[in-house]
C-alpha cells in the first residue's frame, strides 16, 4: 500500500502552460507539505497545510497555488510555467507538524 502517492511521476510541458500535480496520503495524517528539489538536490519547503488550512507559505510565486479538498489530499497547481520551474516536486505528510514527514515518490517537472 502506497502511503504518500503523487501523480503524475513525470510531467513535460511548454513554457506558459498551466499544470497540476496531485498528492494523496492514506496515513491519516493531519499535515501535508509540498517541497521543491532543484537540480542541485536542494530541498525547500513551499507550502504546508494542516487539516485543510494553510500554515506555511514560503516565498513562492503567486503562480503556484496549493489546494486541499480534504486532509488526505494536497494538490499543486502551477500557472504560466517558466523554465525555472523545472524541478522535482515532493509531497509529504506528517501526523503532527513536528513529527516525521513521509515523502511521496516525487514528480519530475520539465518545462521546455
Amino acid at each position: 500500500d502506497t502511503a504518500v502517492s503523487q501523480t503524475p511521476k513525470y510531467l513535460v510541458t511548454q513554457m506558459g502552460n498551466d499544470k497540476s500535480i496531485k498528492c494523496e496520503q492514506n496515513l491519516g495524517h493531519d499535515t501535508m507539505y509540498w517541497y521543491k528539489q532543484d537540480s542541485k538536490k536542494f530541498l525547500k519547503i513551499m507550502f504546508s497545510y494542516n487539516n485543510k488550512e494553510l500554515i506555511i507559505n514560503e516565498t513562492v510565486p503567486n503562480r503556484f497555488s496549493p489546494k486541499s479538498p480534504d486532509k488526505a489530499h494536497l494538490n499543486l497547481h502551477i500557472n504560466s510555467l517558466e523554465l525555472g520551474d523545472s524541478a522535482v516536486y515532493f509531497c509529504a505528510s506528517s501526523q503532527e507538524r513536528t513529527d516525521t514527514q513521509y515523502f511521496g515518490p516525487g514528480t519530475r517537472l520539465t518545462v521546455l
Partner: protein
Amino acid sequence: AQSVSQHNHHVILSEAASLELGCNYSYGGTVNLFWYVQYPGQHLQLLLKYFSGDPLVKGIKGFEAEFIKSKFSFNLRKPSVQWSDTAEYFCAVNAYTGTASKLTFGTGTRLQVTL
C-alpha cells in the same frame, strides 16, 4: 531563522570503510532532528530521528547518529558501508516554538561507495 549545514558535499568511500557525515544546525530552541536518504531516482526515506532521550540514536541499515547539543551537531555514522549505501543523504531540523514549526534541510551529501 534556522539553518542546516552539511559540510561534506561529495564523499567517496570503498566498501567496508567507516562513514561519518557532518551536520550542524543553528537554532537555540527545541529541535527534532532527522537524517533522510534518497537512493538514485527515488524518494526520501527516513534513516533515523532524534526527538529526546538518549542522544545516540540507531536507525535502519546499521546507521546511527549522535546529537551533541553543545555543538549543535547531529552527525551520521556507519561503521562499514556497502555499495548499496550509495545515495544522497540529507540532514533535517524541525525547530519549533508553540504551534509554529518548519523542517529545514541541509544541502545534502552525495555518498559514493566503490567496490
